[in-house]
Each structure stands twice: as structure tokens, then as C-alpha cells.
């Protein structure tokens, strides 16, 4: 098995090894694992923060090596950030992001999907919340048609085989035949 090293090389005393689903090992600085509630709890439970405790590699069966690499990139960047705190429910969601984050999350939809699941599994709240905000920012202010493009949803609309004109196969996409502007959940009165 190969062993990937993050940018700053952890010493044996202050690191743990995690193993991705495809068998790749990653040395992780304990300081970085503080951002993942799943890893932090595991380290605390097994007392891996003690130098006299033997540390077994931690298998992460839900996370591929590519995802892990991406996650480590995030953890490294936020190494010295203050501890994440959940915003108040009345906090107005901000849709502005630092340039690094925008570039980091400028990835195809399928990679975004996998990264979000990995962030959810490892419980990295800052990353999880940022991806949710990015997702929300891509949806907000758009029409249903534009949202379908963003989310790459094509299933509800089919082209007519004879005319090539899009036909509504699932009434939900046109809200029971109502106009694009309409928000109402019920069909219009006849």
C-alpha cells in the first residue's frame, strides 16, 4: 500500500493513519482531525492522542482516496481557523465565499455529491455547511427551468418523438400545467 503525505509532514507521535475504501493510507496530523467530529471522537475514545498508545490504521470504508485527498486539502487550508460554530437559525445565510473556497468547490456535480457525502460521514461541519451554502447559492433566485440545468435533472421532460418539441411527461415539472411563474401547490380552479 502506498502512503500519501499531506503538505506538512506529521511526526509519528502526532498523527494517525486512515485507510480509504480503495486501500490507500493517509497520514493525518492530529491537529487536522480536530475539524472532523467523527475522527476527533474516535481519537478520543481510543486515546490515540497519547504517545504511549499503539495506533491502528483507521478504515474509512465510505471514502475513496480521491475524496480523502480533497478532504485533506480542505483540512490543511482551515488548519488555523477558529473552531466552527453553528450559526443562529435567524442568521441570514451569506452566499459570498472566499476565492479559495470557490476554486476548491469548482468541481463537477458528481464530485460535489461525493464530497458532500464524505463531509457528512466524517462530520466536518465547516465543509458540510459550505457545500450546502454553495448548493443553495446555485439554486436561489433561479427559475425551475434554470434549477433543472444546475442540478442536471432531465428526467421529467421528454422530447416528442415526432416533433422533437419537449413534452411534459411528469406533471410535477409544470406544476399541473401551470405557468413557470406560478408557485401554487394546487392546480388552478376551473
Amino acid at each position, binding site marked *: 500500500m502506498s502512503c500519501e503525505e499531506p503538505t506538512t509532514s506529521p511526526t509519528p507521535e502526532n498523527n494517525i493513519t486512515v485507510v480509504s475504501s480503495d486501500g490507500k493510507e493517509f497520514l493525518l496530523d492530529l491537529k487536522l482531525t480536530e475539524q472532523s467530529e467523527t475522527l476527533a471522537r474516535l481519537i478520543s475514545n481510543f486515546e490515540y492522542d497519547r504517545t504511549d498508545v499503539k495506533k491502528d490504521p483507521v478504515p474509512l470504508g465510505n471514502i475513496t482516496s480521491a475524496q480523502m485527498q480533497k478532504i485533506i486539502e480542505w483540512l490543511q487550508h482551515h488548519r488555523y481557523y477558529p473552531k466552527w460554530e453553528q450559526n443562529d437559525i435567524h442568521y441570514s445565510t451569506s452566499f459570498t465565499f472566499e476565492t479559495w473556497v470557490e476554486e476548491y468547490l469548482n468541481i463537477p456535480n458528481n464530485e460535489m455529491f461525493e464530497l*458532500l457525502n464524505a463531509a457528512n460521514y466524517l462530520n466536518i461541519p465547516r465543509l458540510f*455547511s459550505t457545500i450546502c451554502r454553495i448548493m443553495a447559492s446555485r439554486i436561489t433566485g433561479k*427559475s*425551475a427551468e434554470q434549477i433543472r440545468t444546475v*442540478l*442536471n435533472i432531465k428526467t421529467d421532460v421528454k422530447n416528442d418523438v415526432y416533433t422533437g418539441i419537449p413534452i411534459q411527461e411528469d406533471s*410535477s415539472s409544470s406544476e399541473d400545467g401551470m405557468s413557470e411563474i406560478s*408557485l*401554487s401547490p394546487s392546480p*388552478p380552479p376551473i
Partner: protein
Amino acid sequence: MPSQTLLVDFPAVVKSKVLEKLDLFSILKLRKVCYNLRQFIDENPPKFNSCAVEVTTTPGECISINMKSPEIVSLVFRPDGNGCKMEWKVSYKVRKVVVEMGNYIDVFLRELEGIMKYHWRPVLKSFSIQQFEWDVRREVSEELTRIGCVHTDEVVFDGCSLDQIAAFLPFFNSDDLNKIRIEDLFKQEKEDQEDDIRMLNLQKIKQSEQWKNSKHVKIEAWDFYVKIRDFLNFEQVEIKCEMMSVQDIILIKESFLTSSRLDDFSIGLENYHDREQLYASFGFPSLPVDPETQEEEWFFRIPTNEDVLSIRDVPVE
């Protein structure tokens, strides 16, 4: 293996987290994207949605639903022959226009019902009647009658007459109504009263439950004298009027010293009263008069508690 679709194929907990970050308008749009999302939203209505919804009716023109999303998003409904012209505006710019069959009030009510179903509480932030033309009361009455009972935190009467306000006010649910705002009060011409300035007669309005239960009132009636007794039941009052007697200003001070309800009272007068009369009642100001602003301030101890009443007199050029 089919590729995963963003949001649609997310686990429920993740989907909910994304929805929590969206405004009401976006959630309603998302319902129209596909069956999967519609079903999820209907079964798991987002909980933390504090988006304010306002309705504005401009008789003779249109009625609109406005949301902050975070830009101002408006749905505007106008009568158009036998149909309804519906506009979707973002930051006051028209994004899309469609014409639907049916009465514009029916279309408006259908959309309002749909929006309020997903709003965090079934109460509007504000319902505003903007009357720019005289004698179009019938349209507003029809709209209000069709709505039945308007649940709103604030009602705004802009350019309405006192008779119109008295006729419209009973349509608003008095349990939800906290604020009444009257702007640019319309002065009805009466043959028996030739004066340009007349006494504001709130007799028809102040008996209503809506007036009695509201906590805040804001009134702009530049052509009127105002009687302060009509406003002593509120917590916060803001009045802009032509004139007020010094006796009324003294009455406000006395009411503050005894009322546990009054909290803030602001009066803007077109014609200023005689300061000497105020000195006779209040004494000289508690603080030295600022020579630049001519601002004067008095302080009075409130006997029943430790609060202090502050009265500021600020002349404006």
C-alpha cells in the same frame, strides 16, 4: 451505474440542510423542479424560514406579493381582459410575464395560499393599500372580501381617506395586527367645512378592535389637527401633523407618568407651538439648550418605577 443528481439523490438529512439555507421563494421554485423534490419538500417542510411576505394592493392597477429572497422578489397580478397578467419581478425588474385565464383575484389568492402554506407562520409581515386615485374603494373592498380575514402584523393605508380606513380596517384580524400605519392621509372635501386644516376625527376607527388591540401606530396627516387622546392606548406612536395644542403635549407627559403601556411617542408638527407655554408647564429644560440645534430636553422621574421620562424638543428648519 447512473450518475447521481445533485440534491435529488442526497440523503434526507443533507437535503434538509440545503433547504434550510434557502429562502421561501427558492423553496417554492424547487418544488416545481421535479417530483422527487416536491414530495420531499411537502413531507419535510423547512423549519427555519423567516422570510417576510408582504402584500401590496394598488387599486385600479394591480395586487402583488413581495418577498425578500435575499433580493426583492415580487409576483404582480393585473386584470387583463378576462384573464390575469402575472409578472415575476426580481429587484423591481420584470423577469417573466404570463397571462392566465380567470379573475386576477382568484389567481392572486391561489398563489398567496401556496406561499403561506410554506411560510413559517400564517401571518403576513405587512398588507399595504396604496390609493393613488380617488374613488376606487370598490376594488379594495372586493379583494379584502375575497381574502375574508387578513392575517398581518402591519397594515399600511397610503393615500386613503378616514372613511376608507374605517371601511377596510375590520377585514384585518385584530389578534395578529400589531401595527397600523397611515401615510399621506387623504383629506375628503366637505361642503360644510371650508378650512384648509381640520380636526382629525378618528371616531369611526378608534372603536374598532383592530385600533384598540394594536401596539404601534404611525400616522402622517399634515393637513390635520390631531387630538392626543386618540393615541394613548398604544405603546409606540409616531404622528406627523399640522398642529397640536400645548395642552395635548402636557397630557402626553402626564400620561407617560401614569401609564404602564406608553413607551415611545414622537410628534412632528408643521406649525410649532409656543415654547413659553411649555416652559410654564415643564419648567426650563433639564439640560442647557444647544445653541446650534436649539434642542431642548426635559427629564421627569416616573413615580411608580425607576424609569425616567425624557422629553426632547427638536426644532427642524
